[in-house]
């Protein structure tokens, strides 16, 4: 995985294997959150990111449809299939062949406002969108990437149907960048290497995938997207999350990218020692990333343990050959059609399948006894690896569609299991899988089960996996290689003149790390500076121009606390237009204006309101958006009678403390009294002064 020498792209793709080949098989299973960075180091954990970011352009990348609209309206449908084709370098791509096996009917839902005949592959591409190229160049410059001088549009094959052409048009813009990666909380202070950035068109949104029919919406299809790939240098799940945030910040710094659900999605590459790169696709949030990669790391370790056990038992790939042509049960001793044996089994799903004329097949996996029940992910066993392949490739989606002998008598009952065992001459050391479906699908299923079992001897199959909300993953497709790229013959190369780059470079926005450093110089703690530099209200903060030092600090804290608070209370208006779904250039809700908040900051700076009161005053400004700001601020202003008022309040509160908390220690009474006193003095008298006076008054009492 770490091909540090060739990070700018040699001819061979970056190796997919973890540089460490010694799997820590004895490493104890630990839950997420129980691991230290040293633990992850012991695992050989490493991860990299591919961040996909939609750009806020007016039009799509290769046609003149509007970009960024979202709709569920359907005006028409188109049905297509996909076939694998030859790549530029003369070979079929592995993924392509797998997708072909699935024989899917692909349905596209069309809405006239968002899609034209280009997206439906009925019209050749128009000229590439210059606005998108400009934004991508800007992001490249922010990432310090080496720019190419001529774009070549390539076709990256996707036979899953998510793009009607069967390929994604994509162009490499820059390679080999380095950005500062400084996250105080995690003790990170180093460089992050960016492998490359490409500009590509977004794919369809999947609506459903049942059996041999998959349905897609096309509104998103063709929207310009940057794909930023980091080197696989994240050494813990938390680092990975911070890296994802940093890359997202860079794109957002341009102010020209889309925000909101689905506007930024990441693919994550993970491996552990002895393992190989696994790609988890399309994770829409940063929040779930750490748990996701933690679970994946242990899945890999568990697969390596299974491999070790299979080797110990002497299982070899030759024991699991592919069935010759014809139905697998007619040509392979490892596969049998067992419908007739199971006519009287007790398992309803199998009986239903037989009744519906489906084919029931048993597959013998020599030497696999017990391994199908081995845990791979939380609540998931190795049998899921087989079932996932069958679901995706043989398109079996009925539930359940498979049982196996490691479940004990489960399902079929001991009698039928024994008959199946006899039919396949299976010994106690063998595992059995019974799978059912339409005849051709049952054949595909049996073959895939053998393929996946054989891959267990290799350890970790190269796959892309989909993320589930609980942090586990499922098989999506075989990991594609560079063979799936070939030049787009429909588009000419696009030269990038130096003048264009110079023009963009001259007006680059402040980078997230420059911003972070600037906030530190203003007196914010490193942690607060990192947080604020990535906060949606950072521009608002800058517009308020707080004075360096205490006020800068307090304003950062107050905004970080009060803006999400106000949002939760429904005081901030959502700016997600239901028809657009995503919002450009802003947070998905409307932030308060600088005009409303600036008088507060000025009043604090002028000493008219105590810094203590900034948070409370801000809260009130946000909580009562209709109320007059001047009036609200007046409530917090000092009035000149502070000394008298302080005397009054201290005397009163001290007296009440004596009555209500008789005999309690002074600290308890002080805490109680501070709360009461500050309620009427906040903003006018510094808390420290109140505290000092109260302490004196209470001490007097005690004495």
């Amino acid at each position, binding site marked *: 995985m770490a091909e540090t020498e060739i990070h700018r792209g040699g001819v061979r793709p970056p190796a997919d294997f973890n540089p460490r080949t010694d799997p820590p098989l004895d490493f104890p299973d630990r839950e997420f959150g129980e691991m230290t960075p040293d633990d992850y180091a012991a695992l050989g954990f490493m991860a990299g990111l591919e961040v996909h970011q939609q750009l806020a352009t007016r039009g799509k990348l290769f046609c003149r449809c509007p970009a960024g609209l979202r709709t569920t309206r359907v005006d028409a449908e188109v049905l297509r299939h996909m076939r694998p084709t*030859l790549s530029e370098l003369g070979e079929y791509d592995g993924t392509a062949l797998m997708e072909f096996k699935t024989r899917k009917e692909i349905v596209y839902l069309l809405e006239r406002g968002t899609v034209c005949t280009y997206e439906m592959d009925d019209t050749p591409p128009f000229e590439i969108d210059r606005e998108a190229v400009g934004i991508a160049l800007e992001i490249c410059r922010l990432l310090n990437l080496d720019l190419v001088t001529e774009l070549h549009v390539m076709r990256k094959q996707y036979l899953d149907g998510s793009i009607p052409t069967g390929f994604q048009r994509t162009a490499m813009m820059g390679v080999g960048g380095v950005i500062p990666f400084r996250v105080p909380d995690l003790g990170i202070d180093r460089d992050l290497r960016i492998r490359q950035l490409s500009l590509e068109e977004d794919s369809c949104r999947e609506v459903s995938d049942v059996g041999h029919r998959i349905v897609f919406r096309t509104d998103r299809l063709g929207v310009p997207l940057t794909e930023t790939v980091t080197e696989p240098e994240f050494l813990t799940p938390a680092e990975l999350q911070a890296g994802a945030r940093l890359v997202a910040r860079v794109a957002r710094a341009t102010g020209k990218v889309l925000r909101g659900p689905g506007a930024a999605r990441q693919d994550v590459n993970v491996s552990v020692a002895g393992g190989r790169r696994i790609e988890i696709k399309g994770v829409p949030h940063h929040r779930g990333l750490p748990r996701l990669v933690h679970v994946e790391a242990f899945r890999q370790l568990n697969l390596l343990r299974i491999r070790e056990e299979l080797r110990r038992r002497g299982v070899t790939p030759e024991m699991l050959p592919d069935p010759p042509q014809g139905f697998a049960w007619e040509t392979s001793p490892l596969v049998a059609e067992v419908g007739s044996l199971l006519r009287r089994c007790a398992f309803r799903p199998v009986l239903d399948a037989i009744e519906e004329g489906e084919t029931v097949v048993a597959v013998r996996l020599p030497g696999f006894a017990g391994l199908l029940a081995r845990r791979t992910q939380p609540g998931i066993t190795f049998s899921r690896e087989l079932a996932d392949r069958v679901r995706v490739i043989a398109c079996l989606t009925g539930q359940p569609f498979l049982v196996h002998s490691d479940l004990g008598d489960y399902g079929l009952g001991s009698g039928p299991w024994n008959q199946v065992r006899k039919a396949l001459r299976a010994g106690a050391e063998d595992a059995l899988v019974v799978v059912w479906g339409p005849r051709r699908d049952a054949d595909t299923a049996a073959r895939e089960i053998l393929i996946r079992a054989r891959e267990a001897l290799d350890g970790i199959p190269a796959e892309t996996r989909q993320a589930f909300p609980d942090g586990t993953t499922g098989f999506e497709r075989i990991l594609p290689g560079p063979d799936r790229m070939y030049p787009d013959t429909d588009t000419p190369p696009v030269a990038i003149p130096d003048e264009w780059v110079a023009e963009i470079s001259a007006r680059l926005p402040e980078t997230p790390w420059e911003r972070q450093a600037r906030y530190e110089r203003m007196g914010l703690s490193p942690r607060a500076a990192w947080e604020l530099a990535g906060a949606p209200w950072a521009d608002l903060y800058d517009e308020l121009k707080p004075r360096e030092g205490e006020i800068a600090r307090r304003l950062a804290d107050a905004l970080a606390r009060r803006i999400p608070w106000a949002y939760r209370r429904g005081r901030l208006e959502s700016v997600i237009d239901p028809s657009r779904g995503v919002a450009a250039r802003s947070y998905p809700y409307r932030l308060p204006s600088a005009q409303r908040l600036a008088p507060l900051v000025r009043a604090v700076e002028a000493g008219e309101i105590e810094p203590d009161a900034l948070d409370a005053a801000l809260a009130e400004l946000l909580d009562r958006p209709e109320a007059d700001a001047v009036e609200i601020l007046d409530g917090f202003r000092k009035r000149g009678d502070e000394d008298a008022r302080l005397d009054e309040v201290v005397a009163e509160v001290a007296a009440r403390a004596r009555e209500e908390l008789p005999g309690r220690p002074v600290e308890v009474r002080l805490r109680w009294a501070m709360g009461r006193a500050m309620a009427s003095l906040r903003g006018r008298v510094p808390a420290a002064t109140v505290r000092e006076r109260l302490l004196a008054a209470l001490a007097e009492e005690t004495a």
Partner: protein
Amino acid sequence: MSGDGKGPAPGSGAHPDDYKGYREPLLSVLKENGVTVWCIVRAKTTKGVFEGLILPRSETADPYHLVLKLGSGYNVGLRYDTIQSIEKTGYFRAEYRIPEQEFPVDPAKPRVKLFGTGGTIASRLDYRTGAVIPAFSPGELYGSVPELADICNLETEKLFGVFSENMGPEQYLVLAEKIGEAIRAGYDGIVIGHGTDTMHHTAAALSFMVQRPPVPIVMVGSQRSSDRPSSDAAQNLINATWTAAHGPIAEVMVCMFGPTSDRYNLLHRGTRVRKMHSSTRSTFRTIGDIPLAMVENGKLTPLQEGWAPRRDDREVEIHPVFEERVTIAYYYPNMHPDVIDALVEKGYRGIVLAGTGLGHVNRRLYPALERARDAGVLVFMTLQTLWGFVQMYVYETGREILGLGVIPLANMLPEVAYIKLGWALGMHPDDPEKVVELMQTPIAGEITPREPHDGYLVFQGGVPEMKEFLGRIWS
């Protein structure tokens, strides 16, 4: 893939392809650095370091950029004046090869002959032009469309390697002769792979040159080249081959997508079909009638009656003739008479007018039409509207034009009339009366006696009934 990691040593008798597509100023940069196409290199530039494989440059692209294929599979261009040095680290020559397997033979299956003319039935990429070039042999076809082996025993013969736009009379004649030979040799059906742009011209030519064939003659192509996963090529080829092998209709037909969805193909009569959209899959439409049949997954559903049925005999009339001095004049308002005069002067023997409305041209042309008639040039009237019949009695203009000797051709399509005129003049070079008679007598459905109510269906989007139709068509 293949690669010996070495490649030609610099300076050791370079091959002309070593710099394929590269011109100055880049050629010198490559030579100075001792690298050629297919070298794996590390290029230092003012923009940074790029490592990859040098690919050929398209000759239609500018001469300033070096094309590198990076390890990620992406191609990128590096401008010559940014390149500081190129260091060779390896060599790797790519070969284009469609996986070829021997086409299985099953004596129980019909024999089909596939003629190749160029086009994009199967294809591969050409670096030089960045374009798609055809690939063609039973083995290659079997490698990319294995379903064909379930349909028939396929034999192929590549007749030409021309793109559709370069097809013409020269090719029509060869094709007609070859079809005659194949029929007499006992093939059960004939498929012709053809580029789509002029497929309907060739279909019309074959309709006249190959008469009363006993077996189906099916023309097929693709609107999306077969190098892409979404190509319509495989479905078209499968359905065309099935039609040729098993279909009951012994006519010259075009077999292309019905709707834009991968559903069924339509069989169009060779004289009534026209390419109607520059790029969509459903581009071929029968004009002024309904298609002959639908074909899908080994099932053919006739839509029309009265087609010529398949026969067991091996008889066929082949008339491979064509007079090239014929043309189409597409009328426009204010067309000047010298356009017609120029054609007459240049020795054209026949002119097909594509007139407006029911078959009209402006008065300014009358003297030129008279001069054409007097010079013995045959002038025919067809319609720009494509749909409908020439009717020159309704308006005075029409009657006047008839008076000038212009011969109406009912609902024959302009392109079909052009092809038929060339053929008819070839049949009767010295007998204008016979030519006129032949032109006005339908031979292969080029003139139909009647237009059915559903022969003209150009639907309009947006209207409620079409919205409803499109919304539920595949649901």
